């Protein structure tokens, strides 16, 4: 066999052309300024607040700068059940949402791909709820659902699933829409049953959509304080960490506690997300 003539020349050398430093800087400047102003600065402010101690005068909401790391310990001791509940709710809602969103995204992105009109209508239906306020829709559910159901774990999880489904469907749709159906045909040509083709070809190739869809909903769900609040779908035993932070900030005015909880929440989400992305093999998303 004489294949040598055209083998071994496929070294695709990826070499970015040397950029002129100052142009890059100018282009980056607005982004950097934005991040400094609206992320880095508030974050430092939050971190400093989380270490404050009560003022000598002892008035409500009066704190002075300090390095009181024990705030974190107190926050964890007092509110770990709320943290745990938040993650259990968010995880359940993410799993239920995934089971609903993936088939929906598959229908829109693959099954009706050759019928653009129908595809457009279905996409609009997914996005349409955004045209009405999130709060109004959640309140509407409170009126629609039977009153015995309101204030339970289930009603809160129901609310989370309902409110975040579009955030899951859209990235999954984008992934599935880009799926090359010729690969599916190749799979069946190579002796794979439809179920195996799904497991070995469709699912892995739509994984980026699944990962970004679940992250886009899991992260805001963990910090959500609307669905679980008593004015909406929550009850006495359903407060999530978002509700605790809210009441510490706005009602008891315990700013260091609220700040410490915010940072703890952020850290836990970061750890969970990093582990998840690593395990799912979708590092490209980070």
């Amino acid at each position, binding site marked *: 066999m004489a294949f040598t003539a055209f*083998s071994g020349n496929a070294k695709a050398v990826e070499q970015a052309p040397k950029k002129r430093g100052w142009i890059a800087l100018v282009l980056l400047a607005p982004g950097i300024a934005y991040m400094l102003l609206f992320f880095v600065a508030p974050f430092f402010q939050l971190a400093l607040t989380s270490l404050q101690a009560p003022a000598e005068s002892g008035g409500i909401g009066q704190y002075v700068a300090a390095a009181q790391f024990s705030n974190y310990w107190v926050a964890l001791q007092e509110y770990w059940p709320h943290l745990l509940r938040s993650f259990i709710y968010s995880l359940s809602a993410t799993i239920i949402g995934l089971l609903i969103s993936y088939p929906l995204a598959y229908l829109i992105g693959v099954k009706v791909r050759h019928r653009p009109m129908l595809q457009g209508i279905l996409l609009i239906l997914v996005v349409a709820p955004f045209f009405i306020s999130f709060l109004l829709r959640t309140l509407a559910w409170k009126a629609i659902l039977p009153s015995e159901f309101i204030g339970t774990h289930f009603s809160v999880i129901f609310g989370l699933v309902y409110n975040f489904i579009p955030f899951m469907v859209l990235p999954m749709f984008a992934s599935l829409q880009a799926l090359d159906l010729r690969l599916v045909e*190749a799979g*069946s040509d190579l002796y794979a049953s439809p179920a195996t083709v799904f497991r070995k070809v469709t699912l892995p190739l739509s994984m980026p959509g699944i990962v970004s869809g679940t992250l886009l909903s899991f992260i805001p769900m963990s910090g959500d304080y609307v669905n679980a609040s008593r004015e909406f779908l929550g009850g006495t035993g359903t407060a999530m960490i978002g509700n605790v932070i809210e009441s510490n900030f706005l009602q008891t005015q315990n700013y260091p506690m609220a700040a410490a909880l915010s940072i703890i929440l952020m850290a836990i989400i970061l750890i969970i997300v990093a582990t998840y992305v690593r395990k799912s093999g979708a590092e490209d998303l980070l």
Partner: protein
Amino acid sequence: MAKAAHGSFAEAGADLELVGIQKRFPGFTAIEHLDLTIPAGSFFALLGPSGCGKTTTLRLVAGLEDPTEGKILLGGTDVTALKPHKRPVNTVFQSYALFPHMTILENVAFGLRRRAIGDPVGKAHEALQLVELDHVADRKPAQLSGGQQQRVALARAVVNRPALLLLDEPLGALDLKLRRQMQFELKQIQQEVGLTFLHVTHDQEEAMTMADTVAVMNKGRIEQMGAPEELYELPKTVFVANFLGQSNLFTVDVDGGTDQVIHTISPSGKISVPRRRSERDSGTITVGVRPEKLRLHASAPVDDASINVIGPGRITDVSFIGVSTQYAVEVPGAGTVQVFSQNVEAGPAAKLGDEVWLSWFIEHTFGLADDHLETGAITADFSTQAIATQAGLAE
């Protein structure tokens, strides 16, 4: 799972038989009526312009489409109702369709794993060695060049030792040099492993150099089928005469003849065609001759019962190709006639504007089955343009 597709390799290629196949899509008919038998172990090419139904035929055999009517038999077994994953058939796709998320090795081992064949990794390595790509086994498809991907696609199909291998214009995306080499390799692999190959292409040269049997397809039907030499030397329709190589065609009226030969007259001269080489023998018919069979003469050749002569005409174009010179000769009543002349002597033998007569042996003439020719003499242009025209006709 069907027995044929599970656990073992096909021991040899299998006959493929298409019986009364018809395929209609909403709005158009891709295949009118197709009966076709491809004997085991042969290299069969389906040749035709895009839209002629050749790829649909391939997809029907692979099971990726269901026929509207008709049966598909493989090694005598009716597989019409079998799902693609249960057919002992593999395809080398035009787009290669390599799985982008798997390594080259896993791509090649995919089919083996699905059928639970022993030592899939070892066999995949062997197949990659066959196409000399074992050194890229751990890479992903995106890291390979087009030619390498093509060879991986071939290895991924061949490794399964299917009874029938389907090739859907697999060389279309390669440049000329690579294509020549792959044609040679494919032919060699086919002979080594003894599988039945069904190759779909619109490249007449590719079909002729590779296949034992070529079927020329047009508008959902097979126009003519046979060995490449046979199709080239004795085309039976205008479509075949022009799609496979180039032809000079003349519309003539039959004017008597003998047992052996039909005599005809036309405005440009008398043309005779052997009776056994003509599809029709009365009325107005179309006859033709290949451009390389023609000879140029500076003066009217002496009468000879074994040759046809037309002319005089005037040379309107001379292109020197190297191995040959191509002349366009304007002959009154016959239009433009192409002549390919081997450069046995140095340099062209005639100049632009020269007055010439054309002759060829009667036995090189062929008579076609078509009723008439709308445009008088057609000379097929270089293939791309001819394909474009024919594709237009096929719409």
